[in-house]
């Protein structure tokens, strides 16, 4: 009897330990985000207060109003940045997905010379930090006139994302038995129809998760964008954050407000495809 109750106690303790551990981990992840959201609604005085004010006394939309306001009132071209970000992220994601699907499918289904080597090389590019390449890219773009253009940024992000999407999508296509496509071909499909009507829908969850990852990478990327964009015509939102810095001051409230605007679309997108994402990650996770 004693051992049974002991066992129950241990189980309960473990459960609570689990909860507390998770809570702490979630705090570490969430509090900075919450702080950003909170600060975007608080007056600068309160943000800068020492000791910090944890519970806000006053919440208002001043920072947002200022941000969308005229140039003299601390306004920045939010909508233009948003549009730039959207165009660059969506286009680069679509291209990376198309290439990723073609490449992933090829790696999963076909045998060709130098396959293993090509794959390793593709993955090795992931080991090089993007910023390390910013100078060469800057020089090449400078010569070709791609600096400060949407096209230039799209190219960079496609290059950044393609290895990862190929790797992820390859894993998903490997999980789709090749007999499915064969059965479809016998059922009257061409090779192309067999892909679109059977293999693509079956691997859809994986492709969606690859898409999200590619989108978030482009949407959040700062280091390269800060070097390769110069003007309002191509600056993305992360780079736009710098508009709130001036020689002697930092407009924390404004920065937080813009950061919130950046987080919202990414958050919405993630929630929309959350189901696919989780299914996709565990599904693809089997493959090493």
């Amino acid at each position, binding site marked *: 009897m004693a051992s049974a109750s002991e066992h129950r106690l241990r189980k309960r303790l473990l459960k609570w330990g689990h909860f507390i551990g998770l809570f702490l981990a979630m705090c570490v992840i969430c509090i900075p985000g919450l702080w950003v959201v909170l600060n975007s609604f608080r007056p600068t005085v309160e943000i800068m207060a020492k000791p910090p004010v944890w519970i806000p006394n006053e919440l208002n939309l001043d920072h947002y109003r200022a941000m969308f306001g005229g140039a003299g009132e601390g306004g920045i071209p939010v909508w233009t940045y948003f549009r730039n970000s959207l165009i660059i992220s969506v286009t680069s994601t679509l291209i990376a997905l198309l290439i990723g699907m073609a490449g992933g499918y090829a790696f999963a289904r076909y045998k060709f010379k130098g396959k293993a080597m090509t794959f390793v090389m593709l993955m090795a590019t992931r080991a090089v930090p993007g910023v390390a390449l910013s100078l060469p890219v800057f020089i090449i773009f400078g010569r070709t006139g791609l600096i400060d253009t949407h096209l230039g940024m799209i190219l960079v992000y496609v290059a950044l994302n393609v290895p990862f999407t190929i790797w992820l999508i390859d894993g998903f296509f490997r999980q789709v038995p090749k007999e499915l496509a064969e059965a*479809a071909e016998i059922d009257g499909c061409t090779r192309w129809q067999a892909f679109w009507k059977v293999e693509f829908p079956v691997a859809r969850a994986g492709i969606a998760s690859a898409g999200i990852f590619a989108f978030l990478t482009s949407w959040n990327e700062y280091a390269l964008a800060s070097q390769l964009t110069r003007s309002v015509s191509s600056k993305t939102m992360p780079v736009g954050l710098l508009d709130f810095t001036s020689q002697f001051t930092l407009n924390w409230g404004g920065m937080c407000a813009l950061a919130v605007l950046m987080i919202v679309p990414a958050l919405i997108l993630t929630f929309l495809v959350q189901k696919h994402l989780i299914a996709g990650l565990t599904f693809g996770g089997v493959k090493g």
Partner: protein
Amino acid sequence: MAQVHLKNLVKSYGALSVVHGINLDIAEGEFVVLVGPSGCGKSTTLRMVAGLEDISGGEIVIGDRVVNDLPPRERNLAMVFQNYALYPHMTVRENLGFSLKIAKKSQGEIDAAVNEAAEILALTPLLDRKPGALSGGQRQRVAMGRAIVRHPDVFLFDEPLSNLDAKLRTQMRVEIKKLHQKVGSTVIYVTHDQIEAMTLADRIVIMRDGHIVQVGTPLEVFENPVNTFVATFIGSPPMNLLPGVAKDGQIVLADGTAIPLPPGYKLAEGRRIQLGIRADNIMPEGHALPPTAHMAHVDMKVTLSEPLGTETVVYAQLSGTEVQAKMLNPRPVQTGEVLRFAIALDKCHLFDADTGLSLKA
């Protein structure tokens, strides 16, 4: 329905040849089973007929068309795969109707064909489920249903029952046979299970190392195996093979045991042979079939017995070889017991010791 002809069919991957010039004529409505150990080229042959593998040489004729260069979709076949290959994102109804939809048939036609197939295979209550929610046997039936809705010229089965448990396998085997009787199509069926081959086939094609070893009805290959490979592959338990030498109209085994030559064989003195005896033709006395004109008797020491209910398989030593014999109306047998066995000589086979070929005239 159509005839199928394979003429000198060859498949090689680079220097490695896996199918070496197969010739086979399959009649309209015939149920042909390709059987052999794994790696014998039977699945590759089937996949070449389906158009899923390129043909390295020779010709495949379905109906009156040479289909060598036609893609699978233009060959009008249906195939049932070992792992079923059901489309997981479609319901059973969509799976069944997929080929008709691709062929741009009207919705009315599709529904009629799907309902008919579902009726035949008792799938009607499952039509709106996805494959993930079906049991193994049900998935197997959907795979067959997907094949029959198209009314193909030829059905191809690639080890369709090997993923099922023993009981379900027997049940599905019967269903496949019934289905063939109902639909009457030409069937090419690949399996490594000789029982499936025996029970289903009109004709069995036994393959080994990319060659056809023997073609014949199940009884033909059982009663007249062309060599020791077929003799041991077909039939369960496998045929016992005892090495010996012909001497004075007798076969002398390694330990000196002499057994009279089976009727109908004439052997040169001193020829080295293998004597083939099926377990059904060597039985302990008193537990055997009624004696026939040509009988021989040997004493053997029992090493193991496997009671199966109506009969017991007795393992015993003869001339250094383990022999399996059947005991009808069984009684308990002790290991180490010496029993007298009767051999039905007219049912025995002789094979050349070197080539393994049957010596039957």
